[in-house]
C-alpha cells in the first residue's frame, strides 16, 4: 500500500515552473533516494510533500490523506512527516534536549517526563547522550544533523524526508549522519532522501529516482540506475558524479 502518493504534481515560482508533472508512489517501509543535477527540482519536490512549498497543481496524498483537501488539518498531517534539512535548522536558543522535546511538548503529545525520556532515548540512538545540555552552537555539523534527525523522530513520524542532509557537512562527518540514516532504514522507516551521496543511495535505497528539468526522467532499483541507466541524461549525469 502506498504511504506517499504524488499525482500530476506541478509547482511554479512566479513564471518559473520548477516541477512539470510528477507522479510517484512510495510504499510503506520503502527507502527512495532522489538524485539529479542542481536545479532539477528535487528539493522542491520534497518540500511539496509536506507542503512547505504550496503546490500549484496535482495531488499529494500521505497516509490516504489528500494534503490539499481544504478539510485536511495540515499541521496534524505534518506531525506524521518528519523532515531533515540541509542546514539543520536547529533552534539556537534551545539546548539539544529542548530542541528534541520542544514539538511533542508544545503540541501536547507527550508530558514533560515522557518527552524527556523520549529525547534522551533518541539522543542515545544517534550517539549523542553526552550532548543533552549543550547548545547547537557548541556542536559540530555532523552532531547538529544527528540532533536534527532526533528532533524529527521525536514526533514519531511514519515518514521521514531528508533534504540533502549531508551536503553542508565536512567530508569526515558525512559518515556519522549516513550511519544514523542507515539504521533508520533498516528499522523499516519510510524515507525519501534527496542526496548527492551516490554510494549511500546505491547501498541503502530500495529505489532511485533521477530527476532533471522538473520531471522524473528515470527510476528503478539502484542496480538498474547505477548499473544500467537507460536515459541519455541519466547516463551523462552519472558519468559526471561517479
Amino acid at each position, binding site marked *: 500500500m502506498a504511504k506517499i502518493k504524488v499525482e500530476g504534481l506541478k509547482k511554479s515560482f512566479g513564471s518559473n515552473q520548477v516541477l512539470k508533472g510528477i507522479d510517484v508512489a512510495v510504499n510503506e517501509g520503502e527507502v527512495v533516494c532522489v538524485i539529479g543535477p542542481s536545479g532539477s527540482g528535487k528539493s522542491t519536490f520534497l518540500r511539496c510533500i509536506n507542503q512547505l512549498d504550496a503546490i500549484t497543481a496535482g495531488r499529494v496524498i500521505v497516509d490516504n490523506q489528500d494534503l490539499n483537501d481544504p478539510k485536511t488539518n495540515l499541521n496534524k498531517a505534518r506531525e506524521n512527516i518528519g523532515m531533515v534539512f540541509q542546514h539543520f*535548522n536547529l*533552534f539556537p*536558543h534551545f539546548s539539544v534536549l529542548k530542541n528534541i522535546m520542544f*514539538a511533542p511538548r508544545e503540541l501536547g503529545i507527550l508530558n514533560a517526563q515522557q518527552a524527556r525520556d523520549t529525547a534522551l532515548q533518541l539522543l542515545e540512538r544517534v550517539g549523542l547522550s553526552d550532548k543533552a545540555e549543550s547548545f547547537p552552537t557548541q556542536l559540530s555539523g555532523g552532531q547538529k544533523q544527528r540532533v536534527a534527525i532526533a528532533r524529527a523522530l521525536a514526533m514519531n513520524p511514519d515518514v521521514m524526508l531528508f533534504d540533502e542532509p549531508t551536503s553542508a557537512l565536512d567530508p569526515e562527518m558525512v559518515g556519522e549522519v549516513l550511519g544514523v540514516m542507515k539504521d533508520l532504514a533498516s528499522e523499516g522507516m519510510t524515507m525519501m532522501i534527496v542526496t548527492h551521496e551516490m554510494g549511500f543511495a546505491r547501498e541503502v535505497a530500495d529505489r532511485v529516482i533521477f530527476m532533471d528539468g522538473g520531471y522524473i526522467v528515470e527510476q528503478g532499483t539502484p542496480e538498474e540506475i547505477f548499473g544500467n541507466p537507460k536515459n541519455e541524461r541519466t547516463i551523462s549525469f552519472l558519468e559526471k558524479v561517479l
Partner: protein
Amino acid sequence: MKTKKISFFILSLMLLLVSGLTGWVGNATAASDSGKTYVIGTDVTFAPFEYEDENGDFVGIDMDLLDAIAKDQNFNYQIKALGFNAAVQALEANQVDGVIAGMSITDERKAKFDFSEPYYDSGVVMGISANNDTIKSYEDLRGKKVAVKTGTEGYSFAESIASKYGFTIVPFDESYQMYDDVKTGNSVACFEDEPVLRYGVKQNNGLKIVTAKEDGASYGFAVSKGKNQELLEMFNAGLVNIKANGEYKRIIEEYVGENAQVVNQGRWELIQKSLPALFKGLGKTLLYTIVSLFFAFIIGLIFGFMKVGQNKFLRGVATVFVDIFRGIPLIVLAFFIYFGIPQAMGFTMPLFLAAILTLSLNAGAYVTEIIRGGIQSIDRGQMEAARSLGLPYRKAMIKIVIPQAVRVMIPSFINQMVITLKDTSILSVIGLVELTQSGKIVIARTFSSFDIWLTVAVMYLIVIITLTKIADYLEVKVRRG
C-alpha cells in the same frame, strides 16, 4: 503572576501620565468661583512682558496686567505659556481663548483676530554688542547681518529698511537667540521692541541700545475673530479701570522703571537656582519618553507583524503607515497634529495628547521597522523547521522566531529609546515644557546661554548614558537567556 506584573506596569504608566497632566499648564489664578475659565496663551520668553521667574512662576507686565484686569472684572483664567508663534497658532486653532504676548496690533493680524484697545505703546530700537563702537546708525549696517525675532515689530521694521541700508536679515525664534547672535558677532545688530531690549540690557545681556525708539505699533490683547467678545469687552473695561486707579502705572514701573529689579548673580548661583526648573523639565522629558515609547511599542508590534504577515492588504496598510510617519519630520508632524488637524476639524487638542501622539507615531514607525527587520533577519529555516514538526504558524512565531528576533532587535530598541528621548526636545516648538524648553525659559530671564545650555547638555548626557548602560546590562542578561 505574569499578567499581574504587566497590569502593574500599565497602572504605573497611567499614574505617570496623570501626574504629568496636572503640571502641563502654567499658573492659574482664580478671581472668582463663578463662570468659565478662559485659557490665555502667551509667550514663554518675552521679558519683561512674560517670563518665568526663579520660582517657576510666570511674571511680567502682561501677566500682572491680565491678573489686575481679571480681578477687576471678576473672571477666571489659566495661562498657557506656549511661545509666541505657537500661541498665535493656538489662537487660530482655537486651542486657547485669547493671547496676551506683547503682540503688536497690525492690519494683517486684525484680519484674523479681534484686538483689545492698545495696552502698551511700543517701538523698535536697535541693539548692538556692548563692546562695539563702530555701529552708530542704520547707515553703518551696509553689507552686515542683522538679527531679528520672527513675527515681531522688529522684524517688520528690519524688513522695511533692509534694502535701503543694504543689510541681510537673520531670523530667530527667541529674543535671547538674537542677543547671542549679536554677542558672538554673527550679526552686528538686532531690532527689538524697546521695553524688551531695555530690560535685557538691564539684565546684562551684553548689548547696548544705540538708536532712538521708532514710532511703532501698540500691543493688544487678541481673541479669535468674532469669538470670546465678552472677554474682549471685560479686558477693555478692566484696562480703563486699572489705568484710572494707578495700578497700570505701578506695574509698568515695576518692570521697566528706574527702580526695576536687576538679577545679578554668579554663575554657580545662577545654575543652582535654575536647577529645580531644569529637573522639572527633565522629569517631563522622561515621562513623555516613557509613555510615548510604550505606545510606540504597541503600534510597532501591530504594524510590524502586519508587515511580515501573509495578508497583502494589511502589509500595504503597514507600509503606508511607516512611509508616512517616517517621512514627515517630527517638527512638522507636531505642528500638524497640534495646530493643523484641530484647526481643520474645529476641536481643541490637549498639549500632552498632541505631544504623545506625535512621538508615538514617529517612534512607532521606526519600531515597526525594527520589529519587521528583526523578524525577517531570522533564517527562514527556523520557521520551516518548526512548521515541519507540525507547529501552527502562530506557535512557531511566538516560540521560535520571536525569541530569536528580540535578541536581534534589542540594540535597535535601545537606539530608538535614546532618539525618542532626544526628540522630546523638538516638542518645545508646540510649547511642551520639557528639558530643552525649561532651559530656554531660564535663558530668557538670565541671558546666560553658555551656562544653561551646558547644564542642559550634561543632564541629557547623564540620563542617556545611564539608560544606555542599564539597557546594555539587560541585553547581556537576555542574550545569556
